[in-house]
């Protein structure tokens, strides 16, 4: 039998406080399931950021439009990897698609995912880049010409009417895409929110909280990437664009924060059977990750920083470099905050016993499939894929405002 697992469980056994059911010593959804909603959150958020340009005509954000789409795609490609690797039998994964149980929220994963990937993201990216790909096929020689030909699905139409069609197709896709993005992440929240056995998860607000934290993480990440990539590729950071996007981010963080507060107040006010063990959980196990990282450092501090830049930019025309720095710090803090949110939901929800009489412990291993190392690989992999995509479908012209 798995000696490593036994050793881990033996260690955890010593850290149990109070009474837990005997099967509860093992924490079943580990680091990979923390990474999974984080990845899908970035997808939904990045896509919604991109939609600002297309649907709501927010012109200032145009420089990061293509970057957002490609970011969404690279994160979407890695997300199922986290889910599949954590299965006891990854080789049976296709069963979810072949013999899905309609009553199961998780069984719908495959379909929501496929819909989002095929019908929304890939189509939108294809229409955005179609004429570019045709042009690139003309420019390049040899293998790459073939690649671009194939990528453009051998279409050659660059006439005005063809481009007009692209535009209206894009509009239609984005209109379908926004609810789909909501669906993608709302459903991930539903997977947790519908577990009535677990009072930490079981809340109708959870899907909505997930959604807003997704918007927050997506916008913040794309902005972060933009602020790093633009100077690296010989462009200048367009502060109009950043200011505008940060404003959206600011509102999204406020909504996210308020929703979480409502949820929290509601629980405390109702004060049901489980309130004692949940408060013990927060004080004993999650103080650092929830109170300090998620709320103070990941939400309130960036909110203050952004608010300060917003106020002082008008009053004293705050120096651009200083503003950049403050934004940059806030964006990084927000990323950590959102990751902590995922951690607190997933791991926190498994640290108390369903008997409401005790707490168990979770120790993150470094190696192994549920370990820190593999999680880091999954967190870096989308960036690597993004680098490849940026090579293939370069957004520089748009990003550097030359078009």
């Amino acid at each position, binding site marked *: 039998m798995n000696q490593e697992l036994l050793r881990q*469980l033996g260690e955890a056994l010593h850290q149990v406080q109070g009474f837990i059911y*005997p099967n509860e010593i*093992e924490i*079943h959804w580990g680091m990979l399931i923390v990474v999974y909603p984080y990845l899908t959150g970035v997808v939904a958020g990045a896509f919604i950021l991109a939609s600002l340009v297309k649907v709501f005509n927010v012109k200032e954000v145009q420089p990061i439009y293509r970057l957002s789409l490609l970011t969404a795609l690279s994160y979407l490609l890695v997300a199922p990897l986290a889910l599949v690797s954590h299965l006891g039998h990854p080789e049976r994964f296709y069963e979810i698609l072949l013999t899905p149980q309609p009553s199961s929220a*998780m*069984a719908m994963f495959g379909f929501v995912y496929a819909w989002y990937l095929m019908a929304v993201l890939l189509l939108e990216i294809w229409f955005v880049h179609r004429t570019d790909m045709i042009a690139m096929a003309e420019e390049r020689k040899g293998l790459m010409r073939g690649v671009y030909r194939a990528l453009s699905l051998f279409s050659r139409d660059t006439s005005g009417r063809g481009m007009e069609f692209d535009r209206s197709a894009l509009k239609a896709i984005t209109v379908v895409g926004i609810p789909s993005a909501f669906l993608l992440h709302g459903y991930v929240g539903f997977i947790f929110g519908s577990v009535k056995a677990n009072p930490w998860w079981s809340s109708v607000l959870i899907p909505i909280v997930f959604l807003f934290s997704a918007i927050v993480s997506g916008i913040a990440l794309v902005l972060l990437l933009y602020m790093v990539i633009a100077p690296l590729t010989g462009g200048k950071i367009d502060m109009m664009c950043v200011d505008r996007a940060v404003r959206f981010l600011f509102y999204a963080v406020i909504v996210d924060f308020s929703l979480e507060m409502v949820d929290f107040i509601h629980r405390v006010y109702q004060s049901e059977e489980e309130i004692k063990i949940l408060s013990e959980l927060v004080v004993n196990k999650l103080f650092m990750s929830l109170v300090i990282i998620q709320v103070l450092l990941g939400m309130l501090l960036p909110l203050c920083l952004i608010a300060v830049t917003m106020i002082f930019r008008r009053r004293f025309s705050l120096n651009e470099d200083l503003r950049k720095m403050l934004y940059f710090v806030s964006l990084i803090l927000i990323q950590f905050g959102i990751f902590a949110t995922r951690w607190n939901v997933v791991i926190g929800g498994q640290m108390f016993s369903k008997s*409401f009489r005790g707490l168990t412990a979770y120790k993150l291993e470094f190696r192994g499939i549920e370990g820190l190392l593999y999680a880091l690989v999954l967190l870096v992999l989308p960036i690597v894929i993004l680098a490849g995509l940026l090579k293939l479908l370069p957004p520089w012209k748009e990003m550097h405002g030359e078009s």
Partner: protein
Amino acid sequence: MSGRRRFLQWLVALLFFPARSIAKEAAAKGSWYGFGVAVDRCIGCGRCMDACKAENDVPREPFFVRTWVERYVVRKDGTTTVKTIAPGEEAVPDPAPDKSILRSFFVPKLCNQCVHPPCVQVCPVGATFRTEDGVVLVNPKTCIGCRYCIQACPYGARYLHPATRTADKCTFCYHRIGRDLLPACVEVCPTQARIFGDLNTTASPMSRFLRMNRIHVLKPALNTEPKVYYAGLDGEVR
């Protein structure tokens, strides 16, 4: 008017369809199995746990169990301590001399074979299912090991088998009851604290147990409708 009423009925039926489709009620004919626990009779000897592990290839380690026994000690100051009896632990020290104890008792636990099992509802591939006779089983050949069912079970009845990497739990010893044998834990229990039988047979020990006792189930508010029935259950037990 009647058209509108019919429409409303239809609408309501549609809304509750998902709930109804999983909630197939007791089979009218055939067997419908249930389990009884007489809390006052349990002496915490732990033989049931041993028998279960031996019968069902459950790993010996204490982290994986299909059935277990909890020991409650309620003190005069209102505090309650709970512990799981370690399997094979023969003698539990007699708490009688301790004057601070108000009462102390044992509670056997196992999968409740719920009528509305959340574990069946959430399984993405249908590997967890309910049989005609009301027993919830896991098919290890199709289980993908996602552990959603473990999260969804409010009773901590499930674990992931470390060897097969699939979900596992009490099956009422389905391989035995089909051959008219009792579940292993029921058979070895020296005090008959565990009772098993067909709820559709009026003369079975199980039906008699339900008739003769005031019955309680665990976490009734969750609407899982457990089929493990407790007689003499204390309010402290969750």
